[in-house]
């Protein structure tokens, strides 16, 4: 993948995304180690919050990070932030551990690995994610705890209230654009 760099915003692409793209496109092990140092301790905290003991949590973290390495080709920065992509892998892994059946997954929309992607698109995805993080930070502690537990899989769907007051609208318009871009590319490939 080539990052077009006419915009000054290219400099604002987060280190995590730059590492992830280096892993995806160059199979860069140093970048992977950096990604590990950032995400592994957070993943461990995340997994332990949903009840896993330390040793089991480390096993899950190891599996998740190995999947990040092996499935890097599926990462599309125009549609998802690195953290969102890893969250989804982590939830799958934890379900595999807890249940007999793995989670049924939607059809993949395959990413062209060397597709050109404008850095400004990535920056916008990250800006939306920053807004979301801010909104999460502004929740009252009790509220945040409930949101967190919902996204950690501690509630049934009947127990989840849809109203969190989080700004999903802007994130959605960004993801929608990413999908449109992908559909356009897929059409050109045919």
């Amino acid at each position, binding site marked *: 993948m080539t990052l077009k760099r006419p915009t000054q915003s290219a400099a604002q692409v987060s280190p995590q995304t730059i590492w992830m793209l280096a892993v995806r496109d160059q199979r860069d092990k140093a970048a992977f180690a950096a990604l590990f140092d950032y995400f592994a301790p957070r993943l461990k905290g995340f997994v332990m919050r949903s009840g896993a003991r330390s040793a089991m949590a480390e096993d899950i973290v190891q599996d998740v990070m190995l999947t990040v390495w092996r499935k890097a080709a599926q990462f599309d920065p125009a549609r998802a932030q690195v953290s969102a992509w890893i969250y989804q892998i982590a939830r799958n892994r934890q379900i595999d551990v807890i249940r007999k059946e793995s989670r049924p997954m939607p059809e993949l929309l395959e990413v062209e690995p060397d597709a050109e992607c404008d850095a400004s698109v990535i920056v916008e995805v990250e800006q939306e994610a920053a807004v979301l993080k801010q909104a999460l930070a502004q929740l009252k502690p009790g509220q945040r705890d409930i*949101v967190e537990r919902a996204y950690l899989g501690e509630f049934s769907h009947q127990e989840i209230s849809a109203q969190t007051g989080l700004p999903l609208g802007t994130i959605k318009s960004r993801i929608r654009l990413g999908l449109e871009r992908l559909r356009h590319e897929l059409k050109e490939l045919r």
Partner: protein
Amino acid sequence: MSQIKHHITDPMLVAYAAGSLEHPFALVVAAHVSLCEECRVQLGAHEAVGGALLDGQAVHAVSVSMKDALLAQLDVVPAAEPDQTCERSGAYPGPVMKALKGKPPRWKSVGGGVRQTLLHVDDDGSVRLLYIPAGKAVPDHGHNGIELTLVLQGAFSDEAGRYGVGDLEVADDTLEHTPIAEQGAPCICLAATDAPLRFNRLIPRLLQPLLRI
């Protein structure tokens, strides 16, 4: 681009993203998202929330030995995954094909021209494909819990409205409904329940244990 009018509820998408949704329902959600861009976007937004929570998580130090063991595995070529995804085939989205193990459905008659293929049963519920000839009704039933019905081919109507390809009906135990397939192509649905269906007609009820409905 899409004619889909009936979508997955938000709490159900959150539960799917978080992995707390029962397996039968999760299959229906995965199948609907395969067909519905709107819900793919909404799911992506929920995953972004999950990602933001992960990003803001308090850190727990991981052992150096684990990192070293992981880095040593990077050059290992993984054994072919048994868990291959399946491609869409005709009316059946990828996740349904996977549940069918890549083969066409093997229909069994449940009476009245209606046929079914059971995909999965466990303590959480069951999920099946239903084949309803044009103009025929699915046996009248109510349920103890929630039932999801996703149309894969044709269309049906019931007391709650009209459902075409990609539409998802969420019915709870307050709804006694009788879906009737529209004229034209036979209607094929993916239906999941979190509790055994209880049929209102005598014969289907007697057949229930045998058919594992």
